[in-house]
């Protein structure tokens, strides 16, 4: 057993667990997007960031890929984490503004601005479909092409793949194209229709105190969102 600390609480993890798995086991929520229990961890969406270590050596890592280590000190919702996470959501919104999953995340984390030019690609390259095809459907029909800003997901040479059995696994798992949001407001590209409450604790503390993550449920520290 590995002993480590998450948000000040001592927890025990099995050998081979990741930080995310440990946190989930203890009921601590860490938001994820490119993670799926049935697929290998990828670490591409950077939503599950947590802060590890203390003092000047503290750094952010993706909890879905970082293994649980003896004596590790983890904080799941420091100001640093929340700020980085919000920026990731903002970046995702700018490329896939019609995804309900991402719009919901924006609401949940109080992302009320989207300051980039919309480049609607309807894909955030989280790689879920690629892993689904390879690992669960044994298809390997799709994969990544190119790198950097030209990266995209497609079949080899963009031709109809003979490996593809049209099983639909990729569509089933896609967070960007499966559920549609009603649509962004023209001004901000953010729907925020689901957002009415926000936690106030971040104004006073360095960490989000609400482990339920459901702003409003505990009723102690939320306020009505201004406009």
């Amino acid at each position, binding site marked *: 057993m590995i002993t480590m600390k998450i948000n000040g609480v001592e927890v025990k993890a099995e050998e081979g667990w990741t930080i995310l798995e440990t946190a989930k086991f203890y009921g601590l929520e860490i938001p994820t997007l490119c993670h799926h229990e049935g697929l290998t961890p990828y670490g591409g969406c*950077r939503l599950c960031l947590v802060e590890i270590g203390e003092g000047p050596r503290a750094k*952010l890592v*993706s909890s879905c*890929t970082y293994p649980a280590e003896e004596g590790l000190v983890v904080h799941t919702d420091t100001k640093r984490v929340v700020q980085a996470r919000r920026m*990731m959501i903002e*970046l995702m919104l*700018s*490329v896939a503004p019609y995804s309900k999953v991402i719009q919901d995340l924006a609401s949940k984390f109080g992302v009320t601005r989207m300051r980039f*030019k919309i480049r609607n690609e309807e894909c955030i390259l989280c790689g879920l479909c690629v892993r689904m095809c390879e690992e669960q459907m044994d298809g390997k029909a799709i994969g990544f092409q190119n*790198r950097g800003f030209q990266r995209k997901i497609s079949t080899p040479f963009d031709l109809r793949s003979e490996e593809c059995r049209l099983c639909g696994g990729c569509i089933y798992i896609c967070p960007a194209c499966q559920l549609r949001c009603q649509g962004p407001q023209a001004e901000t590209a953010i729907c925020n229709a689901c957002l009415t409450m926000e936690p106030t604790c971040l104004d006073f503390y360095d960490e989000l105190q609400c482990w339920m993550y459901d702003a409003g449920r505990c009723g102690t520290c939320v306020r009505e969102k201004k406009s």
Partner: protein
Amino acid sequence: MKRIKKFKNVEELKKAIEQQEAGRQQEKKKRVIVVSSGTCGQARGSLKVIETLKKALREEGLKDQVTIRITGCHGFCEAEPNLIIYPDRIFYQKLTPPDVRTIVKETLVEGRVVEKFLHRDPLTKERAWYENEIPFYQKQKRIVLGDNVFVDPTSLLEYLAIGGFRPFIKALTRMKPEEIIQTVKQSGLRGRGGAGFPTGLKWEATRRAPGDIKYIICNGDEGDPGAYMDRSVLEGNPYRVLEGMMIGALAIGAREGYLYVRDEYPLAVRHVTLALEQLYRAGLLGEKILGTDFSLDLHLAKGAGAFVCGEETALIASIEGRVGEPRQRPPFPAQKGLWRKPTCINNVETWANIPLIILNGADWFSSIGTSGSKGTKIFSLVGKINNTGLVEVPMGITLREIIYDIGGGIPEGKAFKAVQTGGPSGGCLPASMLDQIIDYESLTAAGSIMGSGGMIVMDEKTCMVDVAKYFLNFLRDESCGKCISCREGTQRMWEIVRDITEGLGRPEDLELLEELALATKEASMCGLGQTAANPVLSTLRYFRDEYEAHIYEKRCPAGVCKSLIRYAVIPEKCTGCEACKRACPTGAIQGTRKDTHLILYDKCIKCGACLEACRFEAIEAQREEAITIVREVKP
């Protein structure tokens, strides 16, 4: 080339080294002409120079009295092609084939020095006769690069002649693996690839990792624009790198290793391939080396040109035949690396330092440098600098010494503006930081990084926003695209900076740029993303006024950003020489000879060719007055 016999035991190798060294002593009585012919030399015509030299020597009947040694780059790339005549060490530079004939006649036959081919200091205008009088070399401490002058990189025997493989013999016969690691640890050598991790600790971790099969890797995937230290070491002295790897394998307990070299370095690939071939033939690689129990196989792996493959986990993925994408560490390669086995991966320059440390001892090495950073570092000094080339300096030297004493200052008497250290993901340091000493910690504190050692000097005619745009463009292309923070982060930063250079910047852009840069730095997985924001953050820190001039005044202070300037002729200075008119590709310049010229704005494409062509500084980049820039309406 003499055929190499297999060395059956240590004694035979020792004998061969002694024989070669004695041969070198004999050679000292003769004249030796050293011609540098690395990639830089060949690009400037060194192959033709060598050909002419051979022909001229034959014609003068000096063929048997003079030995020619063709070596890799010595570092002074500005002076290529150059030759040094031993034993006097007369240094001739920037030669063409006809020059070589003159030199053979004058210096070799008549015994006179030809003054016009000697090096001339760009600041003092003084000629230096001998190699060791040249200011470029004087302040350097060339422990790694220095031997390039004495070695023909295609011949193992040449390497033996400078005492090569003595360190390996010492490590093999007189040192236990633990002792080797202890020596490396004590020396304070830190990884030369950029991050500066203590090499000894890495070796120890790999040695202690459980498992019988271990690997060593030499990281020669040097992809930074304007940096070529590793290439020159591999081209000029491949045996030293290989010897370092052999000692490393001995210490770590590895039996197999890889050299990962980019395929864009054909000469380095060729020299390493030759070196490996000769080492196998000499029995220094393969099974039961020199009759001992130590066996080692080294392979060459060629990289296909991805900057991100310089990151160790991506490099390992690339050798394994997968897409070159980094993965989360831990597990570190020292625990689970190549094919999930413990792997020690070091930079070319790190490996090249190992034989020297073993031979001269840890104390010798740690006597060079500062308290936290030991030894020397090779920088590739490029950009707006007089003496372009590779400089090897002790840690703790100041930027000023490198740029002015070794580099010879900025060409055309222009003012220094900034120096970019550490490659595309490094930072730009302004003139106020010139007295900054160079070691790992102080560069990081200043907002830059040591990186692999690129050093790009910029003068007053460089726009720092444009520089940030250039590096971001490189990074958005070279990011592997796995993490959204790096892929979208670099892309969006590039878009914002591009808009600023085109006069479309908004005041709130600076805040957004800073926020995004910090998020990219914090949230990315590998070193590429974590440092990708450095060009933006450092230029914002030191040159914020330039960003503000672009945004608020729609003005580019350096006159570089095309959308914000127009070229105009200053009538008082124009002599009507028509030089600009001939240079203009679109025929936008009007005016007859001896008459003031005029630029037609509707034809001008702002290429800047006229500015380059004018010798009277009669063309200047003015602020585009008629600029009416309306930011496109955002959805």
